[in-house]
């Protein structure tokens, strides 16, 4: 018989910490979003004015904010499936191989996650350089008679360039999560399938991928949330340009909140983002639940 109280003991420490350091601040942010709080207001609360929903109406009609929302949707739609598929693919390939070489590959694919962001910015600026005598990508294209491409300068291409960079960075940790889950698939399942004459591709299709269901769900949700908060790549590579074509919602919030001290405005932006993320996550959970019902 399971104890009734036990679960509360298990979750209490985490919940208490989260309550103070995440949930309470969200409510404070909510309050701030209805005010014109700026630096002066931070020092002296009497200088904070209540603005009602004005921040929200203003931000929703701000062309930069709208642009940043569209950009972020674009990032998510292209980036998330890529990250999930590639990190799962690499994890499965590595797992099939076994042996020293293959576990070393795990470290290799993880390396972008531990590469210093300054190093990333320098190297990728060099890779993306528009000149076909300097930039590595354009030099390669040049040798096969293509290009040069203005990777970060053309408003239509810059977003895709940042997605390439972010996918490269994002594979590592998700690959590890899939790797951890792969080790938990019972060997006997494959042995049984093999006896039934299933090919390797069939084994992957009908055993591995379904068995990774839980991790896949986890990776999709966290990647989705991460990409909705897309920030570092445009921050270090393009600062949102050219023509705001790479501006993400998070970067917009950062600019307004921490560079320009419009805390109220920024808080309104982050709460809109917050609501969008919750909706996207709930939607994702619903799909997952439906799939579960279908498979059972």
């Amino acid at each position, binding site marked *: 018989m*399971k*104890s*009734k109280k*036990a*679960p*509360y*003991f298990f*979750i209490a*420490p*985490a*919940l208490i*910490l*989260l309550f103070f350091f*995440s*949930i*309470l601040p*969200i409510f*404070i942010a909510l309050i701030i979003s209805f005010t014109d709080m700026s630096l002066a207001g931070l020092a002296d609360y009497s200088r904070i004015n209540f603005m009602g929903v004005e921040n929200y109406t203003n931000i929703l009609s701000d062309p930069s904010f709208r642009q940043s929302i569209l950009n972020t949707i674009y990032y998510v739609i292209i980036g998330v499936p890529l990250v999930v598929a590639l990190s799962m693919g690499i994890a499965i*390939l590595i*797992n*099939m191989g076994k042996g020293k070489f*293959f*576990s070393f590959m*795990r*470290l*290799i694919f993880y*390396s972008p996650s*531990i*590469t*210093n962001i*300054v*190093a990333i910015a*320098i*190297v*990728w600026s060099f890779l993306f350089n528009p000149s076909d005598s*300097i930039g590595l990508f354009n030099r390669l294209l040049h040798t096969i008679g293509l290009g040069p491409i203005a990777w970060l300068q053309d408003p239509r291409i810059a977003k895709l360039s940042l997605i390439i960079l972010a996918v*490269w960075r994002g594979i590592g940790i998700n690959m590890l*999560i899939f*790797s*951890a*889950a792969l*080790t*938990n*698939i019972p*060997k*006997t*399942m*494959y042995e049984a399938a093999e006896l039934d004459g299933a090919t*390797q591709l069939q084994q992957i299709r009908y055993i591995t991928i379904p068995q990774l269901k*839980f991790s896949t769900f*986890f990776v999709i949700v966290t990647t989705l*949330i991460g990409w*909705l908060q897309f*920030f570092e790549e445009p921050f270090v590579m393009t600062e949102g340009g050219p023509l705001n074509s790479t501006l993400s919602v998070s970067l917009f*919030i*950062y600019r307004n909140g921490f560079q320009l001290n419009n805390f109220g405005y920024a808080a309104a932006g*982050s709460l809109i*983002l*917050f609501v969008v993320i919750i909706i996207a*996550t709930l939607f994702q959970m619903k799909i997952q639940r439906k799939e579960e019902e279908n498979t059972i």
Partner: protein
Amino acid sequence: MVSINRKTKIIIGIILGIWGAFTIIPFIWMILSAFKTNPEIVAIQPKILPNEWTLDNFRELFQRLNFGVYLKNTIIITLMSFVGLLINAAAGFGFAHYDFKGKNVLFILVLATMMIPGQVTMIPVYLMLNAVGLTNTYLGIVLPGLTGAFGIFLFRQFFSNISEEFFEAARLDGAGEFYIFFRVALPLSRPILAVQGILAFIGGWNSFLWPLIIANDQKFYTLSVGLQLLQGQHGANYALQMAGAAFMVVPILIIFLIFQKYILSGFNISGGK
């Protein structure tokens, strides 16, 4: 695991090798740059290997960095952040294996915390810690990042994947809930503990903003803060930065290699191997 023949294995190895080579270029570049002079790094068509290997960057790094103090703080903070692993594992276990009132609401609340950008919470959290007198303490530096929705969620997913029968068997033997958690669940979750361990280590090792904000005294600064100071006012000395970054990454590599073993030594759930 899908068993494959030698030929397939070699093909897979080649695919991974080529792909991996592209992936690791920036990392290699970072390491090798630490041994170059700055003009060489920014040269118009940089070579991969240094023309002349130099240790000057590291020499400068250690001379200018208040090394002993920064290292001590970094290690203390990193060790303390490991406590978070246990908290996350417990919460994930709680959410995965029990039905209790408000479970779904609470779990969605946990997930929701993942969705607020850190910048929004910075000032309120600082005010709270200030209110309870935790500024200028290690606890104040570590506490806000101790637990996180990502970790809880990961553990929950993992534990949901494990059949209930495992725990039932222990319960029939009269084991208490905490015994089950520590002796059955935790050992089972080794692969996830390893993933989380790597993350916790990296997080603690690289912690930058909180040590800076919470401290009113340089004696609480970490290596990351020290490196930022080195970067200087208008500094474009990439060589020095790369030396710092390369130095910071070595312990992470070691930890990775240690924990990777546990990721691999996953638990075979169906028992026999």
